[in-house]
Structures are given as C-alpha cells and as structure tokens.
C-alpha cells in the first residue's frame, strides 16, 4: 500500500490530528526560517566587507525616491488633523490645545505608522518584486556560484537602508504634517501662530519624540525584513512573484499595525 493509500485508510480523527500536526510543523518551520533570515542579515551587516555602495543605492531607492509621496501624505494628513481637531476642540473652547494635539498624534502615532505604510506600498513592494525576479531568473544563483553571498549583496543593504531612512522620513512626515495643520488652523481658520506653536512646546517632550523614533526604526527593519524575505523565497514564475509581492505588502501592513500597538503599550 502506498503512503497516500495508507493515510486514506486511517480513521477521520487520526487524519485530522495528522493534518493539524503537519500544519503546525509547517508554520513553526516557516517562522524559524523567517527569524533566521533576519538574524543572518543582521550578522552580515557587521561582518566586513560591508557593501557601502549597495547600501547608498538602497537608501536612494527606499528613502530619496519616497520623499515626494511622504511629503504629500504628511502634508494632507496634517491638514485633515488640523481641521478635524479644530472643529472638535472649538466645541469646548479649547482651540489652544490644537498644536499639541496635532504634534502628539503625528509624532507618537500617525507619523511612524502612516509613513511606514506609504513606504511599504511604494518601495517595499518593489523590493519584493525585484528580488523575486532575480530569484526566478537565476540571478541569485549566479551570485552564489560566483562564491558571493546573496544575503550580503541583496538582503543586508535594504535592511540597513530601512534602519537609516525610516526615522528620517518619519521626521520629515511629522514636520510637514505639523505645518499642514498650521496652514489650516492658523492661515485659514484664524488661530494665533503663537498659541499653536507655544502650547506644542509645553506639551511635547523628548519622550514623545523618542517613542516615534523607536517605532519608525523598528518599522524600517520590519518592512524591509518582510519584503526581502518574501522576494527571496517567492514561488515559481510571474505568478509566484505577484503572489509574493501581494503577501509582502499585506503582511508588512498588518505587522506594522500590530507592532505599533505593542510598542505603544510598552514605550512611555
């Protein structure tokens, strides 16, 4: 009797337990590979030769080329925040707190999260697709047989670039957002500029800035980790690359939100 035939002959509860066990083993194996992927990349990030040229190129790709979309998103997010919070606070006669409300929302929460989501859509998906195509066209194998380490060339640079660029882009997002809210509340709705910025100085401290910084830093690692992993282990052909790209964007976006909650509850 073949293995499949023997399995089919077993009672249903045994087959169900067997199927569940196989599923759990598969998930555990995938998680192990996922974790080992990051650890290997982080080790190679500190072992020479460090590919500075590749890192600079990835910083340009992930960071510089995302600037327009980050500025646009940051600006309009700030404008919407300014308008909505102004309308709410004016009901209680507390418009003076608009500046700190906008700044705290952006610096602690919206800046890191929205910036990470936007960059995932723009650069993360492209990272996965690029790596996936390299994989299916044997370019990764070509690196391996040249006795060059694909992790060092293809995985470390985007992860290091994510660590460098995400906090910088988030800072830019925050600043543009604060000025977006300023535009609406001060220039359009007639609030005093001194009140807007003065109260902000009173209520926003370094701990808030550091919360945003740690979040953006961890999102930088998270997004590049997920996107390079999905590209590196993509399936066969164009369909495999397409599926990997979708999975990378969805998984990154979900993990950003989950991790944000976790960080928000741990950090001061």
């Amino acid at each position, binding site marked *: 009797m073949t293995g499949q035939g023997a399995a089919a002959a077993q009672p249903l509860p045994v087959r169900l337990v067997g199927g569940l066990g196989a599923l759990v083993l598969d998930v555990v194996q995938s998680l192990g590979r996922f974790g080992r992927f990051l650890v290997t990349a982080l080790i190679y990030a500190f072992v020479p030769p460090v590919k500075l040229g590749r890192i600079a190129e990835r910083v340009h790709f992930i960071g510089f080329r995302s600037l327009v979309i980050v500025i646009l998103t940051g600006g309009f997010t700030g404008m919407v925040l300014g308008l909505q919070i102004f309308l709410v606070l004016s009901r209680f006669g507390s418009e003076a707190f608009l500046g700190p409300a906008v700044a705290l929302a952006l610096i602690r929460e919206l800046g890191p999260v929205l910036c990470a989501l936007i960059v995932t859509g723009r650069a993360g998906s492209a990272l996965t697709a690029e790596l996936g195509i390299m994989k299916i066209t044997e370019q990764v*194998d070509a690196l391996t*047989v*040249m*006795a*060059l380490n694909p992790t060092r060339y293809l995985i470390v640079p985007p992860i290091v670039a994510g660590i460098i660029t995400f906090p910088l882009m988030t800072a830019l997002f925050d600043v543009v957002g604060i000025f977006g809210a300023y535009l609406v509340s001060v220039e359009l709705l007639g609030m005093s500029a001194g009140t807007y910025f003065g109260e902000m100085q009173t209520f926003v401290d370094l701990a808030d800035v550091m919360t945003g910084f740690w979040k953006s830093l961890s999102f930088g690692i998270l997004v590049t980790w997920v996107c390079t992993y999905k590209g590196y282990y993509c399936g066969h052909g164009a369909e495999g690359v397409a599926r990997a790209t979708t999975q990378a964007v969805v998984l990154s976006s979900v993990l950003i939100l989950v991790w944000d909650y976790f960080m928000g509850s741990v950090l001061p």
Partner: protein
Amino acid sequence: MIQVSGLRRSFGAQEVLRGLDLQVGSGEILVVIGRSGGGKSVLLKHLIGLLRPDAGHILVDGVDITRLARFALDRIRERYGVVFQGGALFDSMSVYDNVAFPLREKTRRRGADIRQRVEEKLAQVGLEGMGEKNPAEISGGMRKRVAIARALVTEPEVVFFDEPTTGLDPILVNTIHHLIVELHRKFRFTAVVVSHEIPEIFRIADRVAMLHEGVIVDSGSPEAIQASANPVVQQFIRGDVEAASR
C-alpha cells in the same frame, strides 16, 4: 577531476536522480544529453553546489563537496564558471558591469586592469563596443555570449554550461558551439555542457553521457554514443516519438 557516485535526489515523491554515477576528466568537454525534464539541470545544480543530494558523493579533486560547509564550498566555487540557461545577467547592470562584476568582487584587480580584461573578454565573444548596452537591449544570442564572457572572465578551471543554446536559431546555435570550442582550445578549461541539441552537440564534445530516468545509461566518445546499442540512446538521437512514448 570530478567524480559523481550514487547521486540520489527526490523532490517530494518524485525521484529525479536515482543513483547517478559520472566522471569528468580534466580538460575535457563532457556533454550531458537527455530528454527535457530528465534531471540534467538538477545534476548540474548538484555539481555547482546549489543543491545537496539525498545520498551520494561529488568529489572535486578528491574533496566531497556534498559535505562541505558554505565557506569551504565557496573556495571550490571560485574555481568554477557557470553559464546559466537564461544567462542570469544582472539586469540592473550594463553588459560591461556584468562582465566586470566577478573581477571587482572577487579579485584585487582595479581600474584600467579590469577595463582591459573585460574588453578583451567581450572581444573574444564578439561583443566589442557593446559594453554600455543593458541586457534588456540585446538579443538572446548576445545575452548568452555576455554570460559566457562573465563566466570566463576570472579564468576558471571548470566551466558549466546549462543548455547554452536553448531558444536560439540554428546559426546562433552553431556560433555558440564554435565559441565554446574556440575558448576551450585557448584556455584549456574543463567543460560540462548540458544540452539536447542533437546532432550539433556531437561536434564539440570530447565525451557524451546520456542521462535517462535519473541515471547515466551510456557514455563515451561522440562516435561511440552515435553507434550505441542502447535503445534509449538510439531513440533519443533519432528523436523517435513512438518509442519515446512507449
């Protein structure tokens, strides 16, 4: 130089290599022929260390590469050049940068030295002046020649060709074969060519090995293989559709 013994490899329930034995002599051109999907590329991936076998050994100058750790395997790979089926050129780089890449990354050569070496290799494959082009801008035949130039630029001891003429017209097939022979004569590397270009491949081979259902069923000189009494070899050489489907 390379000795393969009892090589076995399965993918799921499908056993692709079933105890394969093969020898590659130093300086020879060995051509591995066989039907598509018969395991030729899988065998090649084992020879270059991209796949690990379920069982069996691959000895390169007496060292079993199936047991080597990554860094030790890399020392063996430094003696290799590989021409992949689709070329596997880095599409983010120009033709020149593709050929220069192994020199920049794996040798101490710099600047003018690299330029001279790359231009020399591009000239040898008939692509002088094409260095600034992108891989996407050149034809399939040119891409294969760039891949050959890249594989040979570090002057490897062993060069593996994975179906180097697939998808090319008959004239280009002969051009690539002629190029392999010419470069082999000049640099005296050991060549392992995986191909199903019959009968053209017999013109370039020193020795031919027929892979069928996961084992080498016959090997010998091109003349010996063409005169083989093995019905599987004869069916393959003649392209006998009925016999093959039986």
